[in-house]
């Protein structure tokens, strides 16, 4: 019984000491590139992005321990050089980092015709995204099937919003 109370006390102390805050991280103008020539079928575009949460999130002042949970809530892609997304059938967005496993975070299974801007559907699970955002550098990967050969580099601009729970 005594042990039980000691355990309960320790857990209560831990909860009261760790302060969890919710913040929004917005990353804009992330440029994903696939070097051409690209051939019909499965292709990918990638972008490396340095992550400095204290610099990127105004409301997050001072030091923090870690990102406890993370969820991508919005992913909007803009075509840079070409007129529209017509030569792309579908886009799957994944995130990766050196010290965490890659995870799929969003999908657009059918690109609407003549779209110049597309919004991806964010995933429910997004398993392990917090580990990725605890790293200093993350990689955005856009896997896509294209329906025709193209001889130019494919450049896509991405705007992303994440909801984070951060432990002080």
């Amino acid at each position, binding site marked *: 019984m005594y042990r039980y109370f000691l355990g309960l006390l320790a857990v209560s102390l831990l909860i009261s000491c760790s302060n969890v805050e919710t913040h929004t991280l917005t990353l804009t103008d992330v440029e994903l590139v696939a070097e051409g020539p690209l051939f019909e*079928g*499965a292709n990918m575009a990638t972008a490396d992005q340095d992550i400095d949460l204290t610099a990127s999130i105004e409301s997050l002042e001072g030091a923090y321990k870690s990102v406890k949970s993370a969820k991508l809530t919005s992913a909007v892609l803009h075509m840079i050089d070409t007129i529209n997304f017509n030569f792309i*059938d*579908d886009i799957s967005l994944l995130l990766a980092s050196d010290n965490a496993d890659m995870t*799929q975070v969003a999908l657009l*299974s059918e690109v609407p015709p003549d779209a110049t801007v597309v919004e991806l559907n*964010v995933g429910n699970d997004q398993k392990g995204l917090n580990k990725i955002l605890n790293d200093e550098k993350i990689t955005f990967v856009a*896997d896509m099937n294209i329906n025709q050969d193209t001889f130019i580099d494919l450049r896509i601009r991405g705007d992303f919003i994440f909801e984070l729970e951060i432990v002080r």
Partner: protein
Amino acid sequence: MIKYSFLTAMIFFLFAGVSMGQEEGDKLIGVWEPSHGKARVKIDKIGNKYYGRIVWLKEPNDPETGKPKTDRNNPDESMRSTPLRGYRLLKDFTYEGNGVWANGTIYDPENGSTYKCEIKLKDDNTIDIRGYIGVKTLGRTDEWKRLKMKK
């Protein structure tokens, strides 16, 4: 003087060793065909890890719907319309030396399960892919062949 020469030599060997390790690790990059021959998987390097995605399917369309096959067994229901062509089934492999890539996972679209996985290079054009649960002894090995034979 001897001290500086020794230091320079050490730095040279250190960088040469790192570069050789990278080159050896990159032997995995290419297009591979599993023994069943139903798919081809392209392995690329992103950052310092290796990933593989399906680039060709023998039967690209679902016989029931006539539409391109999707990842209908994905545990995340919201991602089940991800096309199988282009799907990343090998993830997060690091090169451990001696022709072994480890710490990765393999996804089986047939049942929506992800297994721990290790890859061994048998020769320049053959790899053994071992998927397992928990310990390596509880698993299955498949031999994959490189699609474009090296001369």
